[in-house]
């Protein structure tokens, strides 16, 4: 037998396995309805490929994997799809999610399926068979197996996790006792797939019957395979944690942030390899699993072969669970499972245990005391963390310090909370801290995103301004050139401006010979249109102001009413005159400010439409369609901008002409 190592910490909670380990696996009768969540695995949820009302056969693909990390879902029995809707999921927060609901017809009619001969299969065909069968890790996390089985590195050791270290759960124990042959066959398939690495099966020493059964199955196959070894490990929680089992069996630690494949290791749950054997050798997808039903409220505690999608309530009825006596309904084990508030949720691929605990069977709810840093948690922590420090940091919301103390390495096994003499729900604190860290990171990312977006926008505005400036300059140069050409054509004509300037300068020199600073020559020509506009605006504003003063004075019976009235009258005249002059000028040149306003409005609107579309592109489901829309919107905008520019150019030209003439 290979050398065994150990991992730091760990605890010894009462095993409570005997309640369910002694009875054989019972096939649960077909339930009337099956509820199949689209997300039973880690990764992207599967997508339904059947329609409501469609008849499906047992084993038929009803939801297809989406992307690399995802898993297929098959109909566990024949029947009719009665709905595809949101239902409560077996989740700690009782989330809802898309589910396919099948009303079973009782015929259990299989879709056509055949087993394959592994000797005839290439690796990719084998992998394909596993992927198609929708197999995910059955130990609890539910990671799609096909992903794990195509590691990038060379694999030297396959580790089969049969530790089943959580108290109460005996599903794997029974599976090994009753399906040892299939398990060995499954292991051989995985070995074939990974290039025949040696295989270590890690089993806790509290399962002697399972060990004997597996040894016997291996004995029978000895001629074929000698490199599968059963490693009996001491019972200690959480030796079934992937990282912990790897350390026990190989003495190596999975690097922080890394995966076992980096050490040349692949770890598979024992139930998963059995499912792989069924998928390849029988052609049966993953449509059922073994689930332990136990606890003092379960009259017929034991292990049940259950179709995926069976409502927990049906399973509890069948196992004669007295819900009136149940104080806590836990999915999973007592150390890492989560409580269900409603039994109207389905069994999913990772449901290894339903614990119906009577009152006082599990630790009662207690007020927790102050942390005295006794360090028992540190002694128990298999991740070698300082749980007490993490607790203090979380309590103080010092999440950066918590991260610095490797919060992310916490596997939430619950060993620390199990030993805490102050009964502090430590794991809950760590989950909270992890959640907060995620939120904070997302916020930082968002802020970063906003910043870069802002900077891009600023740059764009600057670029636009520069481009405009360039165009303006080009126009100015063109105009000057035109003027120069005109002058060249008519060289005798004296430049009136230059002449005027010369006169002014002469005058100045004459009047102030002693003044030092020469006054800058007035070169800017007043734009008459602009001047008129300004004059009109000024008089309008003055009129408005004075009118207001008049109204106030009238209201307060002020004595200045008369004089104000007079100035209002005068200003009204002035304003009308200014307006009339402006209008006359515009009419003379054929300018239309309303039209310009309209054009500007159109340009701004189309620009906004483009921005809006670009923004929605990030979140859009159909990116291509949105991009097409963006192209159209951009075209609209550029034509509007062109129209505006043309108009402006025209009016500028007209004005220049008038001035020149």
């Amino acid at each position, binding site marked *: 037998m290979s050398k065994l190592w150990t991992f730091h910490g760990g605890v010894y909670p009462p095993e409570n396995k005997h309640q369910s380990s002694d009875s054989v696996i019972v096939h649960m009768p077909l339930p009337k309805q099956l509820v199949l969540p689209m997300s039973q695995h880690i990764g992207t949820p599967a997508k339904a490929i059947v329609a409501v009302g469609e008849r499906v056969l047992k084993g038929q693909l009803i939801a297809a994997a989406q992307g690399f990390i995802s898993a297929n879902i098959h109909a566990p029995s024949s029947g009719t799809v009665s709905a595809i809707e949101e239902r409560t999921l077996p989740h700690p927060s009782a989330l809802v999610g898309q589910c396919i609901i099948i009303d079973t017809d009782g015929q259990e009619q299989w879709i056509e399926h055949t087993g394959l001969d592994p000797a005839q299969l290439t690796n990719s065909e084998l992998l394909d068979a596993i992927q198609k069968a929708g197999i995910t890790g059955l130990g609890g996390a539910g990671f799609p197996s096909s992903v794990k089985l195509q590691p990038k590195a060379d694999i030297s050791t396959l580790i089969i996790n049969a530790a089943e270290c959580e108290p109460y759960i005996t599903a794997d124990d029974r599976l090994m006792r009753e399906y040892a042959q299939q398990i060995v066959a499954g292991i051989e398939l995985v070995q074939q797939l990974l290039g025949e690495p040696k295989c270590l099966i890690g089993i806790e020493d509290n399962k002697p019957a399972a060990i004997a059964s597996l040894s016997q199955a291996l004995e029978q196959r000895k001629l074929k395979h000698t490199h599968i070894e059963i490693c009996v490990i001491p019972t200690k929680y959480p030796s079934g944690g992937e990282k912990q089992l790897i350390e026990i069996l190989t003495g190596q630690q999975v690097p922080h942030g890394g995966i076992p494949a980096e050490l040349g290791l692949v770890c598979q749950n024992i139930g998963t390899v059995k499912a792989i054997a069924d998928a390849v050798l029988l052609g049966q997808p993953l449509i059922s699993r073994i689930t332990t039903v136990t606890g003092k409220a379960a009259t017929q505690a034991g292990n049940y072969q259950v179709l995926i999608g069976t409502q927990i309530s049906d399973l509890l009825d069948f196992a004669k669970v007295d819900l009136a006596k149940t104080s*806590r309904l836990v999915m999973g084990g007592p150390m890492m499972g989560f409580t269900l508030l409603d039994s109207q949720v389905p069994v999913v691929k990772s449901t290894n245990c339903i614990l119906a605990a009577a009152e006082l069977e599990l630790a009662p709810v207690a007020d927790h005391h102050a942390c005295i840093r006794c360090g028992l948690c540190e002694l128990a922590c298999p*991740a070698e963390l300082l749980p007490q420090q993490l607790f203090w940091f979380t309590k103080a919301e010092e999440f950066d310090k918590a991260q610095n103390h490797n919060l992310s390495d916490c596997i939430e096994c619950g060993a620390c909370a199990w*030993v805490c003499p102050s009964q502090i729900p430590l794991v809950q604190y760590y989950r909270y801290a992890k959640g907060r860290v995620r939120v904070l990171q997302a916020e930082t990312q968002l802020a970063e995103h906003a910043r870069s977006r802002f900077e891009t926008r600023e740059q764009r505005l600057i670029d636009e301004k520069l481009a405009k400036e360039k165009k303006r300059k080009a126009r100015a140069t063109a105009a000057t050139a035109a003027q120069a050409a005109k002058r060249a054509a008519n060289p005798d004509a004296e430049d009136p401006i230059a002449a005027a300037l010369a006169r002014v300068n002469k005058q100045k020199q004459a009047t102030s010979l002693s003044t030092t600073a020469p006054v800058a020559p007035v070169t800017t020509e007043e734009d008459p249109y602009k001047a008129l506009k300004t004059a009109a605006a000024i008089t309008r504003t003055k009129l408005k102001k004075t009118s207001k003063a008049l109204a106030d004075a009238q209201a307060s019976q002020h004595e200045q009413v008369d004089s104000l009235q007079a100035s209002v009258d005068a200003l009204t005249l002035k304003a009308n005159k200014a307006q009339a002059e402006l209008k006359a000028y515009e009419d003379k040149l054929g300018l239309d400010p309303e039209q310009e306003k309209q054009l500007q409005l159109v340009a701004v609107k189309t620009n906004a439409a483009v921005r809006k579309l670009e923004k929605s592109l990030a979140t859009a489901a159909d990116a291509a369609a949105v991009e097409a829309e963006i192209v159209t919107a951009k075209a609209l905008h550029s034509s509007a901008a062109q129209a505006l520019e043309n108009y402006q150019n025209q009016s500028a030209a007209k004005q220049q002409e008038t001035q020149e003439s």
Partner: protein
Amino acid sequence: MALLNLSSPHHHNLNRTSRLMMWVLLATLPGLAAQSYWFGFGTLINLVWASLLALAFEAAILRIRKRPIKPFLTDGSALVTAFLLALAIPPFSPWWLTLVAVLFAIVFAKHLYGGLGNNPFNPAMVGYALCLIAFPVAMTQWASIDQNLSFTQQWQWFWFEIAPNSSPSIDAWTQATPLDLMRHPKGLTLTELAASNPQVNQGLNASAWINAAYLIGGIALLSLRVFTWHAPVAMLISLGLCASLFHLGEPDLYPSASQHLLSGATMLAAFFIVTDPVTSATSRKGKLIFGAGVGLLVFIIRSFGAYPDAFAFAILLMNLAAPLIDTYTQPKAYGHPNQKRDNN
């Protein structure tokens, strides 16, 4: 039945802080017995008085702080503080000395910092140090071994400071501790001192017995996994090493390692005070440094300082250093690189 909605784990080993504290209290009993055997009932009277005061102050301050009284009163932490104080102060202390010490320990050192778990300094040591500075005479009058005072006489002294008729002067039934004597040898070598003053060897003998009794209690706590071996062992080794080093160099001036380890409050401090989890360093490596630091400071203060025993100051100083030690001794977590792993 309504289903409970709780976060995992759903089970617990049902260990309690109050149970840990109870073990600590029980483990002091051998030391208490030895101390009472050699120095009379003073310690016992002080212990009861200190316990009552501690509970009363704890309840009062909890009430003022508007905290639930019962859970904190029953966690046993106030009693542990009271026990440690009563064991540390001289057996013939009057009632008010204990009162001041307990008041400071519970109200100021513990609750004004936020109560159990939040105090940076060991409360008992704060109370002790305060009294040592404020009432140096009362705090250094250690009972003499051959005083033979009856319970009534001690009782009267405790409450009313009425000296017994037979020996009206307090000097008759108190004496300096052997550590104190050895620190001021008056020009004699330690051997000459021991030969000239029988109190030295008498005192050393008594304190060896008392320290042995505390050691037994400490080992019991270790085997019950109330604390780990790191801090006490580091402290004893560091104190022993320093003492040996100086003793080997100047045997006439410096007491030997065994005299250091088995006199004064060495074992009481090593197993009951240095191990206070709240105020010591956190990680195992940190505890080693913390303990070693206490041992070193104790030796320095004992040998070159102005106080006969040094634990209160040594521990308070190391309490100050604990957060810093924590910062630099964070253990390597699973899967993290560097540092050699011990496959315990």
